[in-house]
């Protein structure tokens, strides 16, 4: 059994645990209402249906269709996540169940109840597990974006919705990844909006997707999605190039490698998330 398979199985198991335990823990807590989100038009972008070319795809499916959806314009901030954990203490540092998060959950925060300075509150939240990200999105009436949804929007530059074949854009992405500073992610304020009006897809943090490691993709949707191969691909050495749609897409290889290394419990200082919805919420 290889690593990817192991993490796949572990995550599948944990997903099962999660779906059985999560409602119980939610019921056990008095649910404080979250502050009403700002007008949907300002926090989410509508993304019309479209096609994109995944790095890895099932044989024959060179382009993947993505239905219209809505995506948060910015990653979830520490401030927003702080409100979430205040309303749902079972997701606070120290009380979160170990099956849902590794030990470094929200480790960058000064304490379980403080996410840092006013500047810190505007940074993307990181060090959150997939379980926590999924719970957050559910709490605000949204969901995590699928890998295909995320990648469709990530292919957009400031001026073009599909900049995937644009060498200059790709070079910029690689420079952005390379220039990432370990530690606190930069402020969201300075990141430009792409053609969908979405900001910070590349310059801030790696982001969770619903099916980051194909963990919740059902058999039937694999046929039209790109998730299937992520867990089986030998994302090491030159064999990663086998089956890739574009071997010069280094930024995409890097993203897939990160996802391949994640389990649903991972709490990595460089991994955050944003939420999606079928319709703007």
């Amino acid at each position, binding site marked *: 059994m290889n690593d990817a398979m192991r993490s796949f199985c572990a995550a599948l198991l944990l997903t099962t645990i999660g779906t059985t335990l999560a409602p119980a823990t939610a019921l056990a807590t008095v649910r404080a209402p979250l502050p009403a989100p700002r007008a949907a038009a300002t926090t989410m972008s509508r993304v019309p249906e479209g096609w994109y070319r995944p790095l890895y795809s099932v044989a024959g499916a060179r382009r993947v269709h993505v239905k219209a959806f809505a995506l948060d314009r910015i990653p979830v901030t520490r401030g927003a996540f702080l409100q979430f954990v205040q309303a749902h203490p079972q997701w606070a540092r120290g009380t979160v169940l170990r099956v849902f998060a590794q030990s470094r959950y929200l480790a960058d925060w000064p304490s379980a109840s403080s996410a840092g300075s006013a500047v810190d509150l505007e940074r993307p939240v990181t060090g959150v597990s997939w379980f926590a990200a999924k719970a957050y999105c559910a709490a605000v009436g949204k969901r995590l974006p699928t890998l295909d949804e995320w990648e469709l929007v990530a292919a957009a530059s400031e001026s073009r919705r599909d900049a995937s074949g644009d060498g200059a854009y790709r*070079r910029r992405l690689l420079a952005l990844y390379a*220039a990432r500073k*370990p530690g606190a992610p930069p402020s969201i304020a300075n990141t430009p909006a792409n053609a969908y009006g979405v900001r910070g897809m590349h310059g801030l943090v790696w982001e969770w997707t619903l099916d980051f490691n194909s963990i919740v993709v059902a058999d039937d949707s694999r046929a039209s999605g790109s998730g299937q191969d992520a867990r089986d691909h030998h994302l*090491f*050495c030159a064999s990663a190039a086998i089956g890739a749609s574009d071997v010069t897409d280094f930024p995409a290889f890097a993203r897939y490698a990160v996802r391949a290394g994640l389990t649903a419990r991972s709490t*990595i200082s460089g991994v955050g998330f944003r939420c999606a919805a079928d319709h703007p919420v």
Partner: protein
Amino acid sequence: MLPFHLSAPRTPMARMLLELALVVLALLAIVGLAGCGAPVDAAEANAASGVPIRTPSSEVIGEEVAVLTTAPAVPAPITRTHATKVIVNLDVIEQTMRLADGVEYNMWTFGGSVPGSFIRVREGDQVELRLKNAANSTMPHNIDLHAVTGPGGGAKSSLTLPGGESVFTFAALNPGLYVYHCATSPVPMHMANGMYGMILVEPKAGLPKVDREYYVMQSEFYTTGAFGAKGLQTLDMQKGIDERPTYVVFNGSVGALTGEKALQAKVGERVRLFVGDAGPNLTSSFHVIGEIFDNVYQEGGTSATQHNVQTTLIPAGGSAIVEFGVEKAGDLILVDHSIFRAFNKGALGILHVSGPDDAKVFASIKGLGVGGE
């Protein structure tokens, strides 16, 4: 049993011929059977074929933590005469480091240096490799050691996210000098950013005694700015694809082996260089100006396959061991003799030889090199 009946031969000559024919037939039958996969003794087959099927040591005694060194230093030769369990603690650290004067680069490193820590184990050792990726890393990393017999050279078992640790174990079956490197996708980026080093699996009988051992590794950097352009440089992917390096260096930076950091030896000493070529693209025409390699273990194997060599070819992802006695005081200059790389891209190092001069080895008689005129 022959499948036909033989009537008695009528003459002695005929009998002799028949006997000869029978012997030949019997020999053919034996050879034929062996070729058809009849069971034969494995050890005998190993010895006979020259292609051994290796087995891990049956007896592994004790445990020790490997002493790792930063280039150009090499861990001391192994004096043990038995196999042991060797724990190798290798930390992946991403950090901004000097590439040349005034030029910096976000290096991804094994052990905080480029090239990464030198690992020395003994043939037959059982190695436990513990790969930690620093919590503040931006990328997942893994390790592929060319000394490993196993999936991905270990890479398949070691994809490690920031803050994580992977552990795998392998038998050091084959002796030799091996490159290791990160193999996380996209592997060219991880290697171009500095993720490589070397592991020596010392033969059971050891290597011949020398006075000095050094670790030298050649590699390329592909930067957005031109050679010498100041400031923080980042990877230029297109230059990498085109195999047009901005820098070709020994030990991770321009000047890593010059000035105060030059290698040192004394007249009359024997020097061994463990030389690796990380690539990511180029092969090295490794040469030491003013010296001749007495022994070359080509491609990092365990036999001194060649003697009296001027320049040895080192493949990307490969190595060579060179040995020479130093007979003359002065500076020996390490280069990749693809000479633009040395002159214009940084592939230069110095081995400073101190001690009494011997004019019989070399002396200037007339010309600019001679004092006074």
